[in-house]
């Protein structure tokens, strides 16, 4: 099935990052978003893992879209997503072991992230691999932005640091990237706890809505 008028690729990016941002506008994938965004490094790792899984799943589903039987569509999609998720976990364990020890639990549940199933089902299964890949990048970019904004805000408020422990992801030279607030701010514990994550997500959501709905009541 073809969509009647296909929007241009640049529109895909504007949609994925702003107008149709998976986390802020569609409120998808909130469980890993709230759980993992306690620091920039955790958030970045989850964003990369989800993005990789989404890219792989979108392109493969698009390539296979003519062969996957309709009755087995959803099981097939979940199977493909689960395969990519398991690969992401294995790669993380092989190449970023310390980070794996910290966030493995939430990388494993990428498979249930409705953001990915949503893009695969409603977009990739109906379009060419190139467009499906571009859409995956756009959606993953939007999700990554939301994750990083939350991660930065929570790390700053909860621990008074920014970019701490980046060496877990980028090797020993990144250990110096850490910025610490002057003085000893201590840190607001609530920013690191789930209730703080909900409050902050609500504030970011409200700010996002205010920016995109300018002029509307």
């Amino acid at each position, binding site marked *: 099935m073809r969509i009647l008028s296909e929007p241009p690729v640049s529109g895909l990016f504007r949609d994925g990052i702003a107008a149709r941002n998976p986390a802020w506008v569609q409120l998808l994938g909130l469980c890993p978003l709230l759980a993992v965004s306690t620091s920039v490094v955790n958030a970045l790792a989850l964003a990369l893992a989800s993005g990789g899984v989404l890219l792989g799943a979108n392109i493969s589903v698009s390539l296979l879209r003519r062969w*996957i039987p309709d009755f*087995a569509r959803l099981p097939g999609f979940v*199977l*493909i997503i689960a395969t990519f998720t398991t690969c992401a976990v294995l790669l993380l364990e*092989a190449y970023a072991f310390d980070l794996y020890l910290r966030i493995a639990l939430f990388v494993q549940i990428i498979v249930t992230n409705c953001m990915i199933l949503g893009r695969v089902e409603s977009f990739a299964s109906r379009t060419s691999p190139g467009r499906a890949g571009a859409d995956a990048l756009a959606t993953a970019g939007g999700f990554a932005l939301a994750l990083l904004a939350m991660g930065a805000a929570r790390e700053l408020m909860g621990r008074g640091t920014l970019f701490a422990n980046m060496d877990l992801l980028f090797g020993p030279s990144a250990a110096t990237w850490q910025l610490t607030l002057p003085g000893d701010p201590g840190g607001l514990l609530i920013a690191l706890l789930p209730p703080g994550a909900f409050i902050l997500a609500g504030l970011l959501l409200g700010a996002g809505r205010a920016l995109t709905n300018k002029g509307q009541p």
Partner: protein
Amino acid sequence: MVKPVSVFVLLVALCALVLALTHSATRGRIEQNRARQFVDSVNALVGQQEPLPTMRWRDDLWHLCNGKALIRGQTRGYGGPISWLVAVDLEPGAPQLLGFQTSGHQETPGIADFLTRKDDPWLQQLRGRNSQNMAQVATLTGATITSRAVLAAVADALAHPDLQNVQCES
């Protein structure tokens, strides 16, 4: 016309192939990482020990023959079992804790990061305690269940029945 069922079976086979390839490509590094982590844990607990002496676990207790012993075990945490490694100084009378290392856990990321952080102050304060004054350690706010599990693990380790009369075998 190909039957849809056979297409699905093919898809399953394809996914299995991708998984098998990734697994064989990463297995070496993953095993290396795990072995490395174990050596790092032992080093952090009892100082430089490279290469490690031959492992001799007896009922999860390993006498290192330098007045120290390692104990391993699992305790139920918030998200599942926490696997741990504990080093004990075999002081006659009251064995002292030298350190606690987590070798695997499923606790909430962010909240339970202290388990794997180097020189975490909460874990540091356990050092030098024995089974008597271990009870005075307060749990960690925000990670009550996880830190209580650590305290239970340490109490378990210090209460190991063979700790008082373990023999060095080398």
